[in-house]
């Protein structure tokens, strides 16, 4: 008697395997950093391996007659084929698509130009002792959060790296150097940034390109608010860092 191919078992296996491979692929290709805080990479990687192992377990069922287990308590909400199709489709998509870090448009849409939004972060560790030249963008923003008077920092040396934003209301000499900050995953990313007064036109540094700045801070009125602005001595175009976020 010819045994029919166990398609349901096969689709289960395929969904588990592809879903697991999708997680592992982000790890292998280094894109996990775009999606998750580094503290939680191990969780996603572990889940990937578990799914692959479950797929292996399921594949055993392809070669031996399956006994049907009645797990009783379970009640289906979605028909099994639908759930499988959704899982398979997303896994295939996830395997093909390369996630990109958020762009300057996203930062503008989330209101980066508005300094009020910066009060969201509640620092657990206050890096006041960091010398100014070693502070990252998020260190600066946290410092400003604790003591917001811009004049207190005028003249301080600054050395930061971030991507370029062209806020539409600012004139052509100004850009913003910005970073997204993560606490958990890209879903809670919020942008922070400092204005930069360039000597030339901002067209030289297109939006979303990455720059590294060295210079000093001064105070200036922008959009009707007194703000801390970077006067750069040197602006270098740099490649996008492996981990585009700050924490």
């Amino acid at each position, binding site marked *: 008697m010819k045994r029919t191919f166990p398609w349901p078992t096969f689709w289960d296996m395929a969904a588990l395997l592809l879903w697991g491979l999708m*997680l592992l692929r982000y790890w292998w290709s280094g894109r996990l950093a775009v999606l998750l805080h580094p503290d939680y990479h191990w969780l996603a990687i572990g*889940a990937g391996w578990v799914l692959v192992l*479950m797929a292996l377990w399921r594949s055993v069922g392809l070669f031996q007659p399956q006994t049907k*287990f009645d*797990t009783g308590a*379970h009640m289906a909400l979605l028909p099994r084929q639908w*759930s499988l199709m959704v899982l398979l489709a997303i896994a295939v998509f996830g395997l093909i698509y390369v996630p*990109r870090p958020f762009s300057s448009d996203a930062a503008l849409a989330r209101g980066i130009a508005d300094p009020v939004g910066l009060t969201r972060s*509640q620092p657990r560790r206050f890096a006041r002792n960091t010398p100014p030249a070693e502070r990252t963008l998020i260190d600066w923003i946290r410092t400003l959060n604790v003591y917001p008077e811009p004049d207190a920092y005028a003249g301080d040396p600054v050395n930061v790296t971030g991507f370029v934003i062209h806020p539409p209301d600012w004139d052509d000499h100004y850009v913003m150097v910005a970073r997204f900050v993560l*606490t958990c995953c890209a879903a809670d990313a919020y942008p922070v940034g400092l204005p930069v007064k360039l000597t030339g036109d901002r067209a030289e540094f297109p939006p979303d390109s990455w720059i590294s700045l060295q210079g000093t801070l001064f105070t200036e009125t922008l959009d009707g608010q007194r703000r801390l602005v970077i006067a750069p001595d040197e602006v270098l175009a740099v490649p996008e860092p492996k981990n585009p976020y700050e924490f």
Partner: protein
Amino acid sequence: MSQLNQGLTLFLSLLVEATPFLLLGVAFSSLLAILVDERKLIAYTPKNPVLAAITGSLFGCVFPVCECGNVPVARRLLMQGAPSALAIGFLLAAPTVNPIVFWATWVAFRDQPAMVFWRVGLTILVSVIIACIFSVQKDLRPFLQPTIARYLPAPATQPEPALVGSGSTLLQGGDFLLQSTGTLKLDQPMLATIAGAAVLPQQSWQAKTQAVLEMMLQEFRELGAVLVMGSAIAATVQVAIPREWILALGQGPITSILAMMLLAWVVSICSTVDSFFALSFASIFTSGSILAFLVFGPMIDLKNISLLLTTFKGRAVMYLFVLAAQLTFVFTLAVNLYTSW
């Protein structure tokens, strides 16, 4: 194009962050469903309604299930003679008050650890109140679907012995199962029936492992699909709806709570992963509304109403829904208005 990119990155990041917790959740609920014997637990629980309600709401620490796994467990508890306060307390609190959800919420809200404690505390409070209200109804049977209700004892009557002597069988009414060890009376409390049954089938550990894996797969398949849809909605809302609208809605102390409760009800995302979903709104919505999402969502949502209806009658589900919604609303509004958090 950049918006599409942003939406897809958001979507994938939610999936990648939530998948480990979902796996952990289904693994635990499957393990416990197969391995733990609720009857022993029931035997040790207090009979006083308030204490039973508190015990029930803390049962989640032993049965880490999400809101899809809790209905079957609550049903088994009821059928095995647990006090109604215990079962209702469990039903409402278990999806939130358990170690996995605690951890996931902690991971998601590292910046606001208070959120974790508010979430757990408020869930226990709301569940205990509702469980106490339900315990006033001494006989829960009118609230249950007939198929479940017939397993429950009437409050005052003594259960009959399970195995009836062959001589008297014909004189008693009811459903009987004829088996080699004697006649089993079906329409009486499950507890008595099981206690009377000669031997429970013992499964080998291979069979148990197989059953656990099978159940994990089933739940992952289904909840994974729900997670995909939930993440898609969260990503779309963040990217597609103009920020001013969301800000206007999210900053009002009342509108924000109503909006998040409605969202929780519609999205029906599993409680092990809902904190990541809520996180994506945390910067714009009031803390009270995020809390409302995290407390109300796991209790009642669109998805688990269909599950609840397999056990409870429509009227009882309505009571549960209205009570949970009102209490959550009142408490989280108080959080918004009277705490600076």
